[in-house]
């Protein structure tokens, strides 16, 4: 599939390739696409198709082997570490395994979302400004965890932990939100509540959301656009309703059956 130039692209991925040194695995092969501001882009594909690698290349948690990523007119693959950190604080990220510090309280975890804005010595001493603390409480309020603010995270359930993760991303006032399989460790009912928070961030805060998902039904319900990866290559790019049965079989293999998540 060939990338068509857009009128006003916000994030552009050009010929992105990632090769893992060990075992010479080609995780991403010459991937190109563009995202407009305010889109809810869903990345689907089987496990190991390169979804996580793609998301991590965008904020350079993983260094891409070749290719370019333009974010708001800046090539992030060329930036120095210090300037990359500056860019990263505008990009929120949510993880499949939540990636919270278990021994810390919920508010302690949420405040770490603010670290990119804090001078180093201040972060070291743990002196967060009063506004940040208030903002953290407000964000916890927003995800419905105000009363759990001072509870240690390892006492929370899976859905609550992911909500803490969302609150942490909210602290960054993100322009882009990367969600790496945010619901695959959760049960269906909780999944929908988490996805609704993402949708809210997309609609109300105007964040561009890029989420990788396992289930096509969730992708159809929440995404404004879907791209599909197979073995690191782009096999589909289009609106959610354009995926028919044939396309589905192409992405997920011949034996796959579509599962509805309610």
């Amino acid at each position: 599939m060939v990338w068509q130039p857009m009128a006003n692209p916000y994030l552009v991925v050009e010929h992105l390739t990632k090769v893992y040194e060990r075992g010479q695995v080609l995780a991403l092969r010459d991937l190109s696409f563009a995202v407009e501001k305010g889109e809810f882009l869903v990345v689907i594909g089987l496990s190991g198709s390169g979804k996580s690698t793609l998301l991590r290349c965008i904020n350079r948690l993983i260094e891409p082997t070749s290719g370019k990523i333009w974010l708001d007119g800046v090539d992030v693959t060329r930036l120095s570490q210090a300037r990359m950190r500056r860019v990263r604080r505008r990009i929120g990220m949510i993880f499949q395994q939540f990636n919270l510090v278990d021994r810390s309280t919920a508010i302690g975890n949420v405040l770490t979302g603010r670290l990119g804005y804090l001078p180093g010595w201040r972060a070291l001493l743990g002196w967060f400004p009063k506004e940040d603390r208030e903002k953290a409480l407000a964000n916890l309020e927003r995800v419905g965890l105000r009363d759990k603010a001072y509870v240690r995270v390892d006492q929370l359930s899976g859905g609550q932990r992911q909500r803490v993760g969302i609150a942490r991303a909210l602290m960054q006032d993100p322009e882009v939100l990367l969600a790496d399989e945010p619901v695959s460790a959760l049960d269906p009912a909780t999944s929908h509540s988490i996805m609704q928070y993402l949708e809210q961030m997309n609609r109300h805060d105007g964040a561009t959301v890029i989420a990788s998902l396992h289930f096509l039904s969730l992708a159809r319900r929440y995404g404004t656009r879907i791209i599909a990866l197979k073995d690191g290559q782009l096999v589909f790019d289009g609106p959610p309703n354009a995926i028919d049965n044939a396309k589905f079989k192409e992405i997920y293999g011949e034996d796959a059956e579509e599962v509805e998540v309610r």
Partner: protein
Amino acid sequence: MGYPEGYLSERPAWTTGAGIQDALARRAIAARRYLGVFLLDAGALAILWILVSYVYAWYVLGTTAYTLVPWWAFAVGVVEAAAVWGSFGLSLGQRLLGRALGPTQGQEASSGARVRYFLLWHVLVLPGVGFLFDPPLHERVTGLGLRPRGTEGVAPAPWYRTSAGLFVAALLVVTCAAAVGVTVSWSALVRLFRQAGETVDFWRALVSPDTSILLDAGRDMIVTVFMAVLSTLFAVVVAVPLSFFAARNLMRGPLGRSVYTVLRGAMSIIRSIEPIIWAIIFLVWVTALRSAFAGILALWVHSIADLVKLYAERLEAIDQGPIEAITSSGAGRLSVLRYAIIPQIVNPYISFTLYRWDINIRMATVVGLVGGGGIGQRLINYIWGVQYRQAGTVMILIVILVWAIDYLSARLRAKLA
């Protein structure tokens, strides 16, 4: 220090008369010499090999690589080459060293003997090396035994029906026989049983405590506890920062990796020298026969090495998730350390420290034996002063102390977990 009179007055057998003993001793010396020359040759060959492979890799591949062959092939090749070399009566190592090893008394081995040694080597010693591999070398070579066991409905052969089992059993028997032969002397065995009746008084003295020394001994016990506490505290202060440099996952890049290697190596060397030996060194340093300060320094050095290893292994096992999350929010390296790594390691570190404190209590009693102060010093003085009642009392006190600290530390660690 504590050597009885006449300990060194007797001349060794091989320097006194002739006869069978003398011949045996000379044979033993010759065998020892061959082993030493062999080891020297193997070492020299190994160094040469490494150098050559370095140079080769540098010129041909343009990179620095340690070996171009797997390590086991390297080891076998070096040892084999040294054996062949030695059996022809040549020695690379001695040539490189520029002098002959050891005194020249004892006859040179004949070429027939050399061939026998060579055969012996290939029959007895070399096959044993294969068992260090996974799967064992003979299985690799013959292609046998690589099947998963028990999947084909056939009962696996018992160990005495397999070549590997028999080989290991024979090796064990030979080793045990050699161990008994080397370590146990007939006279000591005779003494063990003949003295048994006469040691009754000795045992009785050990279990009949002398309460008059309780106050003094108690004071020394407090000193021992303080030694353990202080050495652990000082060790923590040094070991915590060092542990970050000794963790493989935090030290990346060529500089970091070399710091890691050097630090881990040094700690490993320090750790393999017992605290007693450290205490001797520090006693010489502070120029005293007895000094609790030297004891503390000995415990300190050993604890640092041990704690750095424990800490660093814990650091290498931390969850990478929070690091990723905090990096993705644009935080710097120090912030990642402070918010993603430190919260994960605080409790394990405390737990390791308590564990080490527990060990240090035991070690402090041992360090006292060489003059490191505390209760151990009192104990050894009683034993060497043939005051067995008092020694028994001190031993009972030590048992109580070690018990109590063991229990305390275990409870605290259970609470932390």
